[in-house]
């Protein structure tokens, strides 16, 4: 069933020991990872600061290791930091996309447990990792899901969502119906199924980070009296005096490339006293007075040997990439803004 395509061969817990260095503290099954394999990949398991807290998949010696190196800095730790990594090992041919959110989630959980009660740094509690890892391995392989009580107040719930086919192309419609954006919100099983099993339409919602710009049609707000009335009724804040056309028009004109809705709100706070910014944007989109600008990353520097970019071609927006890959908007943004080989186009 689900498990056939993503079989986990081994789950490991690796740590940085103050005098021994990177080592595998626990692995199930025992001795699955050879000394040679670990030596080859250890620098991607217990990593330098630049790679910490990121999902890292490394393939070597016919195996794929997926992990998320965690670093918790505090002067109470020897050498001022706790470094660990709970990861999975699969056969190199395996498609491991479905495992990635699980690895990340586990990293987050362990971090929380450590911060709350020193779960990892205390020997008595760290030992519990071994039976936890055994259960994880068994359950995830057998049913694709796992529920683990960790201690009195913490339980881990995990579910593998297998990709049956490529997710459908994301499209945008100018409709006044706003639903949850999927970026970073993979919590509900129903929503997950919608994405992977047949949902086609995705509509961008109101977000303060969105960027819009006016269309030539915005002029009609001045020329068309009935449109004006409709607009001012729609966008005025409830229970307040009606907004003035001057304010509303200024707000629409304040929208431009590089200006987020957040920026607009801080620059035009006076005009927004009687205007609801969500409804302002909604109306503008409905009536084509404004349109949404999206970020399209383009990979500009690469050597001839590397494969051509799949997503960073200037044809795929952030929204699309987030949904295709499961990364959150903020994480994608952080990743790409700091990449000197990527240029972001607004269009």
């Amino acid at each position, binding site marked *: 069933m689900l498990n056939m395509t993503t079989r986990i061969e081994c789950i490991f817990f690796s740590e*940085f*020991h*103050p*005098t*021994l*260095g*990177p*080592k595998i503290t626990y692995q199930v099954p025992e001795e699955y990872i050879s000394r040679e394999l670990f*030596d080859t990949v*250890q*620098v991607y398991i*217990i*990593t*330098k*600061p630049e790679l910490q807290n990121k999902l890292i998949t490394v393939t070597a010696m016919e195996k794929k290791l997926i992990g998320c190196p965690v670093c918790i*800095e505090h*002067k109470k730790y020897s*050498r*001022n*930091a706790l470094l660990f990594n709970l990861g999975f090992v699969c056969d190199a041919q395996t498609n491991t996309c479905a495992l990635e959110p699980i690895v990340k989630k586990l990293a987050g959980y362990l971090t929380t447990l450590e911060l709350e009660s020193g779960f990892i740094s205390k020997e008595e509690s760290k030992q519990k990792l071994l039976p936890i890892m055994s259960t994880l391995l068994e359950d995830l392989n057998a049913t694709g899901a796992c529920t683990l009580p960790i201690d009195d107040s913490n339980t881990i719930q995990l579910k593998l969502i297998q990709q049956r086919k490529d997710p459908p192309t994301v499209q945008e419609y100018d409709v006044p119906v706003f639903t949850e954006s999927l970026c970073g919100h993979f919590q509900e099983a129903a929503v997950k199924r919608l994405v992977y099993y047949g949902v086609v339409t995705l509509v961008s919602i109101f977000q303060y980070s969105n960027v819009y710009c006016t269309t030539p049609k915005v002029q009609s707000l001045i020329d068309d009296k009935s449109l004006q009335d409709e607009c001012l009724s729609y966008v005025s804040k409830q229970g307040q005096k009606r907004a003035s056309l001057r304010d509303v028009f200024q707000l629409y004109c304040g929208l431009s490339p590089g200006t987020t809705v957040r920026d607009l709100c801080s620059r035009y706070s006076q005009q927004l006293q009687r205007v609801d910014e969500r409804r302002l944007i909604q109306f503008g989109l409905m009536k084509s007075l404004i349109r949404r600008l999206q970020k399209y990353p383009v990979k500009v520097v690469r050597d001839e040997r590397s494969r051509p970019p799949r997503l960073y071609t200037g044809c795929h927006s952030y929204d699309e990439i987030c949904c295709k890959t499961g990364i959150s908007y903020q994480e994608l943004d952080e990743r790409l803004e700091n990449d000197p080989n990527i240029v972001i186009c607004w269009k």
Partner: protein
Amino acid sequence: MSSSAMKKKVLLMGKSGSGKTSMRSIIFANYIARDTRRLGATIDVEHSHVRFLGNLVLNLWDCGGQDTFMENYFTSQRDNIFRNVEVLIYVFDVESRELEKDMHYYQSCLEAILQNSPDAKVFCLVHKMDLVQEDQRDLIFKEREEDLKRLSRPLACTCFRTSIWDETLYKAWSSIVYQLIPNVQQLETNLRNFAQIIEADEVLLFERATFLVISHYQCKEQRDAHRFEKISNIIKQFKLSCSKLAASFQSMEVRNSNFAAFIDVFTSNTYVMVIMSDPSIPSAATLINIRNARKHFEKLERVDGPKHSLHMRMR
């Protein structure tokens, strides 16, 4: 400046926690000793490039000393680590309880150096000396030095005792870096000419960012053989204190009835300290002489600049 600066590879090795990253942070990254408590462990090798004197780039390889890393350096990373090494700095924690293991790793390093960079200069730092009782320090260092020199044969090693809490750190690193400066003889000749023309008792040349003494001249014996590193330490601390107040240290004049000392920016990469014991020479004269000498020393720092001997004019 020059694009053809010499690049020299410096390996910094030693057991985990021996103090390698702390030392390099203080000397090259403007940390004060107290700040180094915050540092985390070095994962594998941390590379840094330090521009020195405009015509030298130090390629520092700060190698994490945990067992797993060390094993790797001697096996899978052997060539990569030990080829083209100009200087090996090996750090020993004087308080270590595993002397045999420390020596074992040290010897493995020397083996790899002999095979891959036989001309490399080897320096051993016996570090954290502040943790040893003051009256024991000389004795303990002597013992260690003897052991190390013996164990290092046929390679020669120069040993220093160091601590991040006093000037001994500066003495060691000054001596090490001094060995790496490409035209140090010329620098010293010119410094001597300069000192003699202006009738200075002593002249020190410091590298600007690190305040390591890279050259000096003295016309007679002085009492304190450790004054160089003490000055480095004092001025560097002062410079850092100034920058914490968003002020940048430029120059200083210290005077009493016996001497006058001037510390000033010299070339774009150096500071100079001039000691005058002749009270009849006014400050202004000395300062003008320093200013006049700058041009000539600037030329020396450019790799492809003409080789001038120093021509000076008094006021």
